[in-house]
């Protein structure tokens, strides 16, 4: 059973569909990326998965639980957590407080979980009592990812976690993503950087014009004529 399953999902803003009939699954312990040109509907799809946008058709499952019509704020406690692109931390709160807020949907005492996470994210551990707004962009993204881990999610959806970061910190973030996947969490990453996505992902989906145009193993996707696919000149497989 996949950790996350989206079947024939159509959604958009108001009555205008942005994504059409998209199906996708994420297995536990794997990294799946969505790449595609600007305006392909990648972020829209991510927002639809986590209930920010409503599906007009289709079904979204987290393991055996149907979350299609579930209010967005109830979804994290059922195992699916979303990390938005940019401005994704509470800047006036400390690193510790950010993690505590992230643990809201978890059951019981989250202090042990927080210590466990901080022992992995060494940067954050050093800055635990600093305001998140004073962290660098890369550290803020790591904090947002760390905060998502507080509820021990089945799946994390990351919307461009390396946008605007230096190459060095992009590596840091991707290494952490791979480490998280190794613990058995399914990860879905919306990514603009094709090279990085192919390097770090197990499965890749290419969205073009609101459709899941091509998908497959990262190694298979790497052999395709990606510029042609991005420009809509190649047939879907």
């Amino acid at each position, binding site marked *: 059973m996949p950790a996350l399953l989206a079947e024939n999902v159509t959604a958009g803003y108001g009555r205008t569909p942005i994504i059409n009939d998209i199906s996708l699954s994420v297995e536990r312990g794997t990294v799946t990326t969505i790449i595609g040109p600007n305006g392909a509907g990648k972020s829209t799809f991510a927002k639809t998965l986590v209930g920010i946008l409503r599906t007009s058709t289709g079904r979204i499952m987290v393991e055996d639980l149907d979350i299609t019509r579930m209010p967005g704020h109830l979804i994290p406690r059922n195992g699916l957590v979303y990390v938005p692109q940019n401005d994704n931390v509470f800047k006036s709160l400390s690193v510790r407080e950010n993690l*505590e807020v992230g643990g*809201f*949907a978890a059951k019981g005492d989250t202090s042990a979980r927080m210590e466990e996470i901080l022992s992995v994210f060494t940067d954050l551990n050093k800055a635990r*009592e600093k*305001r998140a707004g004073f962290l660098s962009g890369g550290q803020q993204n790591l904090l947002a990812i760390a905060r998502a881990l507080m509820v021990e999610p089945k799946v994390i959806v990351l919307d461009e976690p390396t946008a605007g970061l230096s190459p060095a910190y992009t590596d*840091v973030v991707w290494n952490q993503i791979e480490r998280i996947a190794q613990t058995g969490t399914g990860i879905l990453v919306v990514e603009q950087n094709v090279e990085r996505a192919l390097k770090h992902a197990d499965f890749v989906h290419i969205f073009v014009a609101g459709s899941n145009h091509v998908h497959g193993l990262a190694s298979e996707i790497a052999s395709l004529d990606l510029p042609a696919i991005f420009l809509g000149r190649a047939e879907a497989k």
Partner: protein
Amino acid sequence: MSAFWFYVFTLVFFLFDYFILAMGLNIQYGETGILNFAYIGFVALGAYVTGASSLPASAGTGQQYIMGWGLPFPLNLLLGGVAASLLAVFVALIAMRRLRTDYLAVVLISFSLVFYDITNNYVPLFNGADGLYNVPEPLAGIFKLTTNSFVPFFAIVTGLIALIMWWAMSRITKSPLGRTFRAIRDDEGVAAALGKGVFRYQLTSMLIGSFYAGIGGGLLVQFGGSFNTTSWLPAETFVVFAVIIVGGVGNNVGLLVGALLVETLLIHLPAFLPDIPGHPGLIEYIDTIVVGVLLWVMLWFRPQGVVPERIRKTPLALLQGLKSDRSTNEEVPAMSISDGAGVNEEGGVRD
């Protein structure tokens, strides 16, 4: 009691009363990010309900008002607070479900104006433009207080109430609830993505803040003995905003400083000064200009206020024995890396 001390205790009353009002607006705006431009409307409702519930039945009083139950202090005051909270729930259900920030602020201003017009023109509600008067002085009969002795007495009572409300507010802002309010203020979208029911928390914040507004209004009407529509022009909301912006948004101690600087020293102290010969009322206008300029200067040069917001130590952090961070109010330089410099093998940043 000399006139000097009468004025001093009057100022003390306004200091504590505006401290309460500032705490109420601060939890809405400073902690949760709700731009409540109708705040003075909630203050007014608290004042009217407290006054009307403590007055006897209106027949024969020369006034028209609802209630007239002759409730004793502090039941009338609590009723004023509860009434303001109920109004907040009503307003929140209508306006806050779908509107955010600027749009919500515009709707709340409109609400304030509508409420003002209704109370000003619908006489059977709270006696129209004349407002309520002859509101009983609380506990004056029990302690056999004269008009002179009532002023210091009630200033002290208001101080005690402010102390209790400050203690309660500190508990709220340091609790997980307060932390959630601040998270919503920073980014309600991210808060929702983490499982927070944003509207429910905003509603809670409105409810708590409006209770404070109602209590502050109730104290006003009992101190002065009267309350009418000239006491709460919609623009009065911005005086309370000035209190929290000057004092320090998100900091309860800063609110007391703001109440002292803005409300006590700038608004009420000059009101006791003699008029400038040939220019009656000029001091009041200068006063308003000074408050406006102060607000401008603070927003430009020190937007965090005189006493800035501090990072709260939650019980969890205290239990873990985390060291108190002496630099929480200082701007800590961002730890950044460039081109791999400073990155260790584990992806951490070197000291």
